Every structure is written in structure tokens, then in C-alpha cells.
């Protein structure tokens, strides 16, 4: 079988296997549908209520994407500042560690109080969760420039800013890429937790409402949409990162 076909069929086979196990558990346990709905029931919700699901999904997706963009921007700028100005390091690094030591979940209620029930509080949540992996990975990359390259730059009489931009930043892009991958995987957490704490729209809001009404099949449907989006986002980012650092594949 060609590699391309295998790459498509493998996840489909995994999905089908999981669905079969799910259905089997439901039959065997005889659980009532308000505890564990079968895949068919969830599929029915997806089919009949997709306009409502999609409306809420767009809100959550927008929060995640905005948070990802903002977190990437802030993280990259912070890492550049920390890496290029030594005094900055002493001031910013502790802030960075503290920002990560406080669980975002604990901050969520405060953020909702400050920024309201709208998207802003969720975007900030997602940004906070993304900021740290991006900053630390990029900073690490900037700090570990191949010493030989820096020696060469010094004998060439390279200027600090130029060496940073033409040498240290591109050299750190693979590290930034892996930080971004981690960030993409955790980004949905920030948005959904924010929606749970207080919101009027989004997949998290939909799940909370469905939960209160024991509409477990609708919760599963929302979860499914979120999972499909998260996986799609991860692979898109992964592909973009690969395209941005093509020399990584050529190496070795």
C-alpha cells in the first residue's frame, strides 16, 4: 500500500476501532443514554443540531486562534528581549516563572470579572497558557547558538543587531517551532476553561448548558467538534513550522 493511502487509512481505522469499543461498552454496561450515549446518538445530534454547534464552535475557534497569535507574538518578543539585554533577563525571567507558577485555572474567575463574559477574557486565558512554552523554547534556542557561528561572526566584525537577526534568530527558529507545537496542543484548554467559568457563547458554554440538563449526547457532540478542530489546528501548525524551517529536514 502506498505511504499516502496508509497515512489516511491509519487514523480512520483508529477512529473506527474506538467507535466500535464505545458502542460495545454501551451495550455491555446497559448504561442509560443520559449517562453514556452511544456513538449513533451523538452522530444524530451532530447531524440535527450542527448549525447551533457551528455557531458556538466559531467563537471558541476564534478565541483559540487569537490567543495563539497573541501568545506567539508576546512570547517571541519577550524571548528576544530577554536574550538580547542582560539586565532584562534579571527582571523578566522571574516574572516568566511566576506567570507559569500560578495555574491559569485559578486566574480564570478574576479574568472574567475584569474582562467580562465576552471573548476578551478567554483570549487572555489562551494567550497566558501559550505564552510560556513559546517564550521558554525560543529563549532556549536563542541562547544555544552554535558557538562556532558566533566566533565567525566576531572575526567578521558583525554588528550585534545584525548577528541577532541574521544568525541567532534563524538558528532558534526550530526551537520556536517546537514551542509553538506544544502551545498549539494546550491552547484549547485556556479557551474552554474560560468559557466554563463564565460566558454566553462557545463550545465550553454549550457543554456546561448541556451538562446541567443531562444532555450528555450534546456534550459529546461539542467535545467531538472541539477535538476535530484541535487536531486539525495541530497538524496545520506542524506543517507550517516544517515549511518555515526546511533546512531541518535536509540536515542529518
Amino acid at each position, binding site marked *: 500500500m502506498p505511504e499516502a493511502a496508509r497515512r489516511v487509512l491509519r487514523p480512520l481505522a483508529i477512529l473506527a476501532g474506538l467507535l466500535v469499543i464505545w458502542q460495545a461498552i454501551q451495550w455491555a454496561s446497559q448504561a442509560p443514554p443520559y449517562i453514556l450515549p452511544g456513538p449513533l446518538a451523538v452522530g444524530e445530534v451532530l447531524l440535527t443540531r450542527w448549525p447551533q454547534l457551528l455557531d458556538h464552535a466559531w467563537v471558541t475557534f476564534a478565541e483559540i486562534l487569537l490567543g495563539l497569535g497573541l501568545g506567539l507574538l508576546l512570547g517571541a518578543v519577550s524571548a528576544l528581549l530577554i536574550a538580547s539585554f542582560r539586565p532584562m533577563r534579571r527582571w523578566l525571567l522571574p516574572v516568566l516563572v511566576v506567570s507559569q507558577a500560578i495555574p491559569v485555572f485559578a486566574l480564570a474567575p478574576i479574568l472574567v470579572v475584569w474582562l467580562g463574559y465576552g471573548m476578551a477574557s478567554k483570549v487572555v486565558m489562551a494567550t497566558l497558557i501559550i505564552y510560556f512554552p513559546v517564550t521558554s523554547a525560543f529563549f532556549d534556542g536563542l541562547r544555544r547558538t552554535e558557538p562556532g557561528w558566533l566566533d565567525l561572526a566576531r*572575526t567578521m*566584525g*558583525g554588528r550585534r*543587531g*545584525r548577528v541577532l537577526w*541574521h*544568525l541567532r534568530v*534563524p538558528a532558534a527558529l526550530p526551537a520556536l517551532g517546537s514551542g509553538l507545537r506544544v502551545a498549539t496542543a494546550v491552547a484549547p484548554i485556556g479557551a474552554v476553561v474560560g468559557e466554563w467559568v463564565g460566558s454566553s457563547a462557545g463550545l465550553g458554554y454549550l457543554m456546561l448548558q448541556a451538562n446541567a440538563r443531562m444532555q450528555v449526547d450534546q456534550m459529546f457532540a461539542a467535545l467531538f467538534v472541539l477535538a476535530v478542530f484541535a487536531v486539525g489546528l495541530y497538524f496545520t501548525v506542524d506543517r507550517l513550522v516544517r515549511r518555515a524551517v526546511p*533546512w531541518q*529536514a535536509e540536515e542529518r
Partner: protein
Amino acid sequence: MTQSDRPAGTRGGARVYPFPDRRTARPAAEPPDSPGVRVRGAQLAFDGVQLFDRLDLDLAGGEITCLLGPSGVGKTSLLRLIAGLADAAEGRVSDPQGQPLHGKLAYMAQQDLLLPWLSARANVLLGPRLRGQTVTRAMRAQADALLDRVGLADAATARPGALSGGMRQRVALARTLMEDRQIVLMDEPFAGLDAITRYELQALAAELLAGRTVLLVTHDPLEALRLGHRIRVLAGRPARLDDSVGAPPGAPPRPADQVADRQGALLDRLAAAKRAQREAGDA
């Protein structure tokens, strides 16, 4: 293995990048009167051991000086001191008139130090770019001419990952020549290459670097005898310079068979130096 893993040189039939014809490889823009290099009172202590102390070194202007010696004797430290990259070594470095060497040096290491995200041409143009100069069309033409000199005219747009070790080191040589400095410091630049490639690259480098003041640190006696106008052995603890084995007659690059008779003497000298170093270490 996907298509992108394969070096570009082998894609679509065997494409090779031959070494340039010996007659066409002329020195790059003859530098007028390359100054010599004077090192005075160099010293280096490592873990409380004095590797060298009050060491003096003179490089004659416009000549290739080969520096040999056992591993760990401090050859690279000495070269880095001259390059202004000293980590621990100290000493006064100047030209024979006592003027600083700032801006007159180019440096080439054992690793090619090519940036993997840049094409061969962009790598050759790294110096101007890092100094903040605008890369002009003339500079680009010069870079292409230098790539042509090292036999890589067709590889100008290839990334280093698609080139073989020997090709990459030739790009590094072109980058060194692009800097057009009167003094060139080379730290085992051919050590990682196979014997044939090394042999060809030595000849190419000697021709292209003619007229410049070169310090070549090497482990290879044959390389030193082929390329050096002068041969210095760094040995002992604290290390001293010794030029008891003279360079063979004739201008570098010398054919291997003309230097074979001196290779034995130089090897004996290096073996003695290594023995002495081992005994000093035991004491």
C-alpha cells in the same frame, strides 16, 4: 527516504562539482604586502597547568606558517588568541609595527560553519551582511566568481544540507576569500575530509591564498610539508615553538612525492613531542 533527504548533487542523474582546473585557479586579488603577525608574551593556564608561558610567535608577511603539535598543547588557543577569540589565553597581538590586527583577519575552522538556512552564495556573503553593509550587485557577482573559483558555480543556490563535506568546506573557503583579508587563520580546515578531497582542497587553498599571511593549524605532517613556507612545532610543557624541521624547497602547494623524505623527520619530531607531553603529564 524522501526526495528532499537526498543531496541535490545526485538528484536527476549524477551531477558533480569538479575541482577547478589548476591553471584557472589563480590567487584572489593579490593583496598588497600582507603584514606579518607578532605575538608577544602569550600565556595560557588551564586547571592550574601552565600550557604555555611567555611564548613569542612571529608570522612572516605573505607566507603560510603551519603550526603542528600534539593534541592539547594549545595550538588552537594560540590561533584563537590571534583571532581575538581568546577564552583564557592572554598575550599581545599586533603586526610587526605594533599596530592592532583589527579588521585584517579572516577565520576558517574545522567545521565549515555554514548557515544551513542560507544558499551557498548567501553564505559567502555572510560577512557583509553581518556588518550591516548593503549587498550590492557587484558583491553578488564577486561571490559567484569566488564560487566559480572553488568549482561550485552551479551550486550557488544550493543549501549546505545538499552539499557534501568537501563541497561545504569549499564554500567556506570562498566565504573566507570574500572577506578579502590580508591575514587568514585556519584551524584544521581540512581535517574532516577524506584523503583525496583533502589533497585537492589543499592545492586549491594554497593557490587562492597565495600572497596572504596564513596561519594553518594542522595535525597532518603531509599537509604542513605541502603547504607551509615555514613549519613550527609547538611542544613541551610549558610549550615552546620549534622549527627544527624546515619546509621543503619550492613554492606551495608542493607535490606529495617531493615532500615524502621530510615526512619521516617531521613525524619523528611530533612523536617525540607527544612522548614528552605524556611523561610531563605523569610527573
